[in-house]
């Protein structure tokens, strides 16, 4: 469910639109922020806040790839392996990354629950290959060493927290 602070945040966003249904994606992003995925309770909370049926919000969650219903790692690592990136070695980069993290070649979530690794289609950065988004932040012109260092940094942040 949305907290009081989240309701206030949503009320600010609602001022942008003549129809509050337009705020469904922003509201779902707010609800998803804490855990990286949406529970049935979260979805009900958004449906109630915007006067939309739960079924319709469920359909929206199912339609858009950045909205998730399954538990994921704390950090979602999305590596682009679409054609322009694949031509510059992104598929091998992705396979090696999965291997070093002890994951199957198609990706998955590390045992410690820290990283969910996925291959995705075009991220609009085809001139900076290999690249990834980690929790929607761009990391470009990567190498094996660079992404390892980035993931190590996130691991340390997580242990400190």
């Amino acid at each position, binding site marked *: 469910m949305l907290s009081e602070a989240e309701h206030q945040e949503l009320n600010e966003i609602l001022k942008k639109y003549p129809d509050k249904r337009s705020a469904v994606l922003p509201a779902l992003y707010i609800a998803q922020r804490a855990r990286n995925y949406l529970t049935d309770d979260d979805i009900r909370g958004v449906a109630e806040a915007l006067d939309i049926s739960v079924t319709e919000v469920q359909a929206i969650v199912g339609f858009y790839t950045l909205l998730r219903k399954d538990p994921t790692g704390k950090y979602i690592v999305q590596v682009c392996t679409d054609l322009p990136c694949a031509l*510059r070695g992104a598929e091998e980069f992705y396979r090696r990354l999965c291997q070093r993290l002890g994951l199957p070649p198609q990706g998955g979530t590390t045992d410690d629950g820290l990283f969910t690794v996925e291959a995705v289609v075009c991220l609009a950065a085809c*001139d900076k290959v290999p690249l990834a988004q980690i929790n929607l932040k761009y990391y470009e012109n990567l190498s094996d060493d660079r992404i390892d260092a980035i993931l190590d940094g996130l691991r340390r942040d997580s242990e400190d927290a």
Partner: protein
Amino acid sequence: MSLLAEHVLLRHRDVPHIRDINVYTNHGGYDALRKALSDMRPEEVTDVVKAAGLRGRGGAGFPAGVKWSFIPAGVKPVYIVVNADESEPGTFKDREIIEANPHQMIEGIALCAYAVGAQAAYVYGRGEFKGPFVGLQQALDDAYEKGFLGRNILNSDFSFDIYTHLGAGAYICGEETALLESLEGKLGQPRNRPPFPAQVGLYNKPTVVNNVETLTNVPPIVLHGAQWYRQFGTDKSPGTKIFCLSGHVARPGNYELPLGAPLRHLIEECGGGVPGGRALKAILPAGASAPILPGPGWGTGDILDLSLDYESVQAAGSMLGSASFIVMDETVDMVWAASKMAHFFKHESCGKCSPCREGTYWVEDVYHRLRDGSGRPGDVDLLLNIADQMDGNCFCLLGEFSVCPVRSSIQHFRDEYEALVKG
């Protein structure tokens, strides 16, 4: 090296820090808006954009000023929706504008709003642009503070607001009516056309939907005039265009060139050519959504002589689209390349119409078995047959375009397919 003395769109490459509003205004920024509000009637702004011949840069190439003139008089409110859902494989130009030269786009949106009498605009970005949109919101806040947006802009009676909105991962939302559905909080699935968004758009109101790059062209057109703009490009494809160059070139990146520049210049001068002295095998001029053009050793004539304007690329058998050029050298397995695009379209089909929903799955299935060694006799013709069944029967262009890589790769590289069936 460049065919332009200075950039018209990627001005940050000539003027450092132009993303800062003070730098932008010190270099002529918002002068076009000032000029329009003080010296021009709204229809004069539309007229100059029409006279300049600016064509939509999102892919369709439809004349922008003509699109604006479809907005009916007397129906309020009018909306502008800026398509920043940049998701075509190989396309990364709008992101560079938003990150590095956002005020020129913002000024272009405001000029469009003045021309069509709009009260509000929404910039719809793909969900993955969360980071770039933080900077865009800052730029919008700065523009409000300086009086270029909001109530009584520059002390005129023109008032106008711009809002940002992020999608959540769906290529189909780049289709303008699917984008409107998504912005209304629904599934991003395309609408029937007609009615077109100019009549019945966002919240059923008249709406202009334009691409980021299209609107970024507007301030220099209004400031310097149509004749100035037409010094660049060709008669039918005027102006400059950002070409996104990716794949097998030494220097991938965005390059702004006059329309009609030779492909040779883009690939060899800008991109540094195909690395390692390898031969150029094929080019996709508009990401995954246009037919493949074969390289000199695989097709007739020299593709590098191609002139990069809408008409010439079409005459060569493909489309300029959003001008996302994916370059492939002689080492590329074309069945693999086509299968990557088949996967893309299957992943992104919205599921609304059965030819696309079923067809893209079926196509990818056939590619799977071709590539894992279990290709059957007749599979190549089967792919062509599925393409024929989809062609003309899909609800929107996603499905229609999905057959382009299939057909064109078979047309030019059929031997590579047949080898997999026999092998």
